[in-house]
């Protein structure tokens, strides 16, 4: 179709337009209506590339993937706890695993048929060879790394979402991740719940936590996804 025909008559009232464009499904077709070129060929899939998708769905898949990683990690500790865990640790790791499961299943439900896994032949097996799972300090160090990363991931990616209800849903998880992070940090080193490495301690942003973009988060966590490489280019970046 030509570029002018959609709006050409001038009959479309501003009020109508606002109503139409307010619906995201309509937006996609409206924008596609502006295309005069045939759709280009999709980018060929490279082996072991993990594609998350675009827009809000892509971001939900990003959080789903991070949550799967976290649950797989806690499940390993629950299944085979390090022998030097102290009293109370086991109950704490049970809680962290259970919360992760609640988050994971919620995200899976929210994604429905749009999970990135539909493009995989078999479920992802995470690679934990980069961390020590056999000592208390090892699992607490890794738990702290994952929880702090999660806190930064939520703060960095929530502003990239379009649907307010998705922002509201993920914000409910974001603060629980921060509670986890603070708790795990205190278990490892008492008093570091809001340490200088995660909460800025100088300048205009003093006492404000550090957000990380999906690109930064995936870069930090990439060893866990091997042999898969998570592709972040399709995710929103602004």
């Amino acid at each position, binding site marked *: 179709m030509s570029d002018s025909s959609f709006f050409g008559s001038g009959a479309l009232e501003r009020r109508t337009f606002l109503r139409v464009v307010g619906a995201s499904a309509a937006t996609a077709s409206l924008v596609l209506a502006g295309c005069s070129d045939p759709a280009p060929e999709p980018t060929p899939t490279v082996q072991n590339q993990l594609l998350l998708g675009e827009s809000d769905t892509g971001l939900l898949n990003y959080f789903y993937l991070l949550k799967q990683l976290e649950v797989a990690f806690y499940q390993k500790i629950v299944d085979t706890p390090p022998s030097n865990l102290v009293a109370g640790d086991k109950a704490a790791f049970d809680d962290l695993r259970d919360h992760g499961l609640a988050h994971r299943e919620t995200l899976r439900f929210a994604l429905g048929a749009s999970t990135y896994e539909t493009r995989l032949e078999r479920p992802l097996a995470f690679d934990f060879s980069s961390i020590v799972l056999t000592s208390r300090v090892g699992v607490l160090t890794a738990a702290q790394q994952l929880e702090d990363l999660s806190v930064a991931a939520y703060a960095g990616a929530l502003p990239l979402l379009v649907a307010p209800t998705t922002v509201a849903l993920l914000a*409910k998880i974001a603060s629980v991740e921060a509670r986890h992070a603070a708790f795990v940090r205190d278990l490892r080193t008492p008093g570091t719940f809001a340490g200088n490495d995660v909460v800025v301690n100088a300048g205009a942003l*003093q*006492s404000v936590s550090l957000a990380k973009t999906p690109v930064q988060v995936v870069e930090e966590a990439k060893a866990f996804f091997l042999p898969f490489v998570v592709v972040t280019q399709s995710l929103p970046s602004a």
Partner: protein
Amino acid sequence: MNILNLLSDIEKVDPEVFDRLDSRRRVFQHLSGLGGKLAAAAVPLALGAVLNKAYAGATATQASVLEVLNYALLLEHLEANFYNLGMVNTSITGGLSANNVKALNTIRADENNHVIFLRGVISAAPFSSTPVNPAVSDFDYTGAQGGARAALFPDVLSNAATFLAVAQALEDTGVRAYKGSATDLMANKTVLEAALNIHSVEARHAARLRTMRRGGALTDRASLVAAVPGSASTSPKSWVTGRDANGPAPGKTDAVYGPGTPATGTAATIFFPAEDNLTQASANIATLLNSAAIAGLTSPNATLAASEAFDEPLDMATVKAIARNFVRTGTPTFALLS
């Protein structure tokens, strides 16, 4: 595809389209950046996202970003001032272990920095506004509202346990307040990200205070003390379980863990259920977990997890009502919170 023609056509029916897209220059920077980064096939979807963002605010009946900022600033003043008064009092610090004093001073510094940060944001462009500035004397942490009624926490500034209990209620309220306003800030992504960052720091504080209360004010390694099941008021987990038996002071702190307004809604609306809510995205998460039949996850634990794994938001009016408990009646601050 001719994006320029498309935007120009949109402008014919909506002259404000470029304002909605921040600025003409920024749109084209955004789109040209996308073109470089994305396969051509992705551009229509990306442009759809741009338009969605631009028009999300057009239908929203939400408080302005500046209103939220001043509201957040009032709450930060409430918190900062609380720690400023308590942590210089030897009857408080004397009742706390060394690690706990250090933790509370960290929290105190964070809250004071949040005040400075928010004042800076409000003063600077694009708001260029004068931030609210509540007087220290406007606050009354005993909950007597300056003598208007009997005190709720008469020894709050002289008893470490009471001090920690009120601190927990304030921080848990802060978490719910920032969360409840997050969607009102979507029109300004810089402010939204900053608010989410502060939100997570508040949650870290809340978790630490809960750990301290669980372990006892004088216990230095409080994190090693497990919560006593069924005693959420006196021995809370670091996260909120159910309604936490109505909080650290049942009968006084119930609203901190209770529902906001509106308390119910659909998956397509924003609403403010109590902390014992089990439904997310219109699914009962406990049921979801049980039907997934996950090895090692018992049904009672699935119900606990479905509640604990989600902090619920609170609306501005409900948070203001909670905050008024600690403000003298008849003061400018009380009026701002009414």
